[in-house]
């Protein structure tokens, strides 16, 4: 006969669960403050530094040069017109780096970087010799080690809330991908007004793995630390549009006070009280058995189309590899503003923009 009560009936927390739990709490402890009550003063644009500084390691061969051309992966990500390919490069959003290092049979080339005032993206080409085959499980033990002017981004409170992602690139229709040639992308975004112009960026990729990264018990197939360093040119400020229009975000009338845009991403400035109603309802209108996962403000403000002044409508294709990341939410109770940011699935022409379409709630908003 069992001798049990309800409390004792339930199992204890398993060790693996506990470890992941604690790991997550540590991650939260390391996170930057999400509620931004103070704004970083905009940094003075620094004097441009023209050439990238090269690392020199005993076992490493480095070739550097400004070999700018649009890589196919990047073309898939941003789908630029011919004019945009030129203008984005001229305006400093896209940069060709061409640094290359070889260690233990693995050559990694930093091909292109993309940047605006809240986003930093790097595209690497990985080439291996015959002894190392790569597939979709290829990764690095540590592929998110990013420094700006020598300081780890983890320690830069001035960036505000930040996020980073990295992984192999698999947009459709890239002809040269093979077991011995893959592309790896690193994307880093942040929320505060922090000027990247003239900053020196360092990225490290440590130990090529197969079967996932360190957290997924990936196996190291090539040891090495591939270090890259480059200096950013002057980067244009985001264009700020005073909108001051109400928009129906699926049953919520919210005033869009302003919109900040670059060709790569956007930030909407929403009325605090009206926007917070969505969060409140998300918390209170919980549906357990329903299939509708509900929509948070990020979902409701997701832009899937833009319209230009000449009436041309551009539909964003997020499904097949469009966009390079960026985005987030932040709340400024003091200034009564909610900021929602997101990345466009393709480069847009800021000068010609007239309206944006929020796909999940099927609403157009004229912004200019």
């Amino acid at each position: 006969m069992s001798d049990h009560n309800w409390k004792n009936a339930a199992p204890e927390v398993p060790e693996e669960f506990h470890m992941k739990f604690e790991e997550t709490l540590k991650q939260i402890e390391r996170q930057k403050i999400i509620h931004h009550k103070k704004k970083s003063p905009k940094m003075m644009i620094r004097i441009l530094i023209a050439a990238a500084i090269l690392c020199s390691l005993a076992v490493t061969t480095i070739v550097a040069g400004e070999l700018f051309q649009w890589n196919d992966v990047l073309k898939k990500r941003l789908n630029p017109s011919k004019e945009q390919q030129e203008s984005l490069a001229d305006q400093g959003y896209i940069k060709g780096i061409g640094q290359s290092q070889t260690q233990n049979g693995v050559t990694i080339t930093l091909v292109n970087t993309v940047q605006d005032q809240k986003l930093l993206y790097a595209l690497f080409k990985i080439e291996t010799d015959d002894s190392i085959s790569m597939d979709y499980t290829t990764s690095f033990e540590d592929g998110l080690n990013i420094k700006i002017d020598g300081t780890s981004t983890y320690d830069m409170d001035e960036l505000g809330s930040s996020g980073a992602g990295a992984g192999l690139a698999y947009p459709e229709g890239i002809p040269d991908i093979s077991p011995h040639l893959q592309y790896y992308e690193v994307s880093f975004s942040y929320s505060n007004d922090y000027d990247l112009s003239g900053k020196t960026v360092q990225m490290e990729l440590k130990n090529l793995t197969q079967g996932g990264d360190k957290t997924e018990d990936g196996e190291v197939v090539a040891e090495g630390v591939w270090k890259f360093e480059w200096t950013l040119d002057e980067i244009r400020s985001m264009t700020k549009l005073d909108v001051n229009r109400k928009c129906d975000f699926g049953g919520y009338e919210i005033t869009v006070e302003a919109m900040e845009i670059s060709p790569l991403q956007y930030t909407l400035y929403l009325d605090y009280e009206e926007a917070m109603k969505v969060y409140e309802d998300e918390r209170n209108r919980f549906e357990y058995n329903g299939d509708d996962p509900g929509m948070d403000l990020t979902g409701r403000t997701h832009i899937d189309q833009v319209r230009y002044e000449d009436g041309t409508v551009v539909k964003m294709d997020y499904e097949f590899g469009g966009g390079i990341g960026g985005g987030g939410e932040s709340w400024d109770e003091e200034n009564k503003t909610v900021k929602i940011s997101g990345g466009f699935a393709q480069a847009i022409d800021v000068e010609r923009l007239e309206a944006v379409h929020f796909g999940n709630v099927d609403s157009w908003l004229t912004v200019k």
Partner: protein
Amino acid sequence: MTRDVFIREIRQSESMLYHVAKSILKNDSDCADAVQETLLKAYEKLHTLKQDQFFRTWITRILINECNGVLRKRKCVISYEEYMENAGASEPKKYTHLYMAILNLPEELRILVTLYYIEGFSQKEIAEILHMQEGTIKSRLSRARALLKEQLTEEGSYLPVKATGAKMQLR
């Protein structure tokens, strides 16, 4: 709520979070993933928690949403029944008779039994968490007890009484 208080509250809720996730997902690995996502999401949206006293119901709501999200994704890949069978089969049989019986309940009853009997939420709190009428909760709990009684009677076990730890022999 400050970050330190949030982390302290979360630590105190660890077993509760595990049990709630387990009542929906069964598989320990999925539970860990869902709870991890829940913690990150909750911290990100901590500003929406207006009164600290509602922390437990608030975090439980987020977790249940997250678990349902995991289930929805699974359903796209394999059938729900297949997932649950696999999840059950992959776990070692290390549980008490009562807990095994709870795991055998239909999903909508498992979560109720977990919240009410194991974690001690009031019916009012559960009504808020699951957005259900208290009357529905009462009747479902009654159904759950009947099903548990059926299962445990076959094993000659007892169904405990909530909160007191005393036992009530099944008739």
